């Protein structure tokens, strides 16, 4: 598990109400059974944790923790 993935899993834990095992392959919306607004709330926490901007437009192509980790790493490098 990369450092970004493990940090994302930690941030995701409060939203993991059905107690799924979290990994890079976790589909944030369908595996955790969380709605679109909750996904946006989670991403806000990710933005603040890494101090980066993740526009909502990016989310339509971001399904798994690994997808999100790629977005975070690309945007962290930029800053």
């Amino acid at each position, binding site marked *: 598990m990369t450092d970004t993935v493990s940090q994302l899993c930690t941030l995701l834990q409060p939203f993991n109400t059905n107690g799924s095992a979290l990994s890079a392959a976790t589909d944030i919306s369908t595996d955790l059974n969380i709605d*679109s*607004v*909750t996904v946006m709330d989670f991403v806000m926490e990710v933005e603040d944790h890494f101090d980066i901007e993740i*526009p*909502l437009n990016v989310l339509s192509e971001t399904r798994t923790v690994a997808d999100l980790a790629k977005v975070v790493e690309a945007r962290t490098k930029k800053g």
Partner: protein
Amino acid sequence: MDLLAKLATTAERHARMKFLGGDAVGVVNEKLISPTRALIDGRETILAGTNNYMGITFDAECIAAGQKALAEFGTGTTGSRIANGSFALHKQLETEFATFLDRKHCIVFTTGYQANLGMMSGLAGSRDTIYLDADSHSSIYDGCTLSGAKLVRFRHNDAADLDKRLTRGEEDGGGKLVVLEGIYSMMGDRAPLADFIEVKKKHGFQLLVDEAHSFGVLGPHGRGLADEAGLEKEVDFVVGTFSKSVGAIGGFGAGDHPYFEYLRYAMRPYMFTASSSPASIATSLAAIRKLAAEPQRRKKLAENSARLFHGFKDLGLELGCDVVSPVVAVRCPDEPLTISMWGALLKAGVYVNIALPPGTPNKLCLLRCSVSAAHSDAEIDRIIELFGAVVAQGHGKKVANG
């Protein structure tokens, strides 16, 4: 793969709702008796969830104006505003609305939803960024998506959080639009406008306020939150609807920008839909004149809102916000209890809205009331009495005790 297979979970949730308390999302008003009464399931019911803030839907002059327009202009316009669908009535409504709003320009849309779709997508394009409040109405989210702009969501009513996100964003040469609402439809709270104006002075964005629930309601002229706060000059664009305080259907966008009128040729939700029917436009015109001439409606709404707010507070109910507002949301413990309490209230004779996630902030389950100037004191007291019997007693104790 069956395209509709994905609706299986929706069907299950709906069936569960009907079993627990009734079809809270499929209520049929069999007959309207007044702005505050309808026949539902054969019973006369007090309406406390219709956003009919001014109670103007049965006003005799508005009805007469609608009937006259129906006879003179026909049943429908059969065309969009940029083709054959602009009638003298539409232009007259735009002129009178601009005067009421103290704005140079006003554009009328077919619905309030389309007003937000049109304004967001007309103002911002793919090179721009829209900063929107997390609790924005779906029409704002959908308009933002339609615009193709970069979308950044900031924490609800948190000007410092917007400041942080504006500072964090890279300067990319595009325009920046910030979107707020006068009164938020679920919780009834207002945007802290002065705080946001301070951030505007620092970062220099353009500001739009959606006054859907505050138009007619707030401010010395009834123009909304910016009117109440005395900050209209700092607000670049206003959006609103005719389906609440105006008691018709339609929406508007307004502003002072010299190019504002050219938005008509840049907003697909304005260009590619038929214009509002003559009757709806004529009743809106009559209603706006009433709102200007009868400030006592606003006063009565404020009194009714305070009566319901304090009545609920005295019952120990936990509300959506701590200020008196025509939107009074009661926080409930969970979805099954909320549905059963909603059903019990309806059977006892009061209709309120049910609001469940993801339609609510922070996964809240709400029984949402909206107050009307047309409610009598006795009706407000009856709503309080029924919430006392159904919500505060029994199940509701859990809410009151946290």
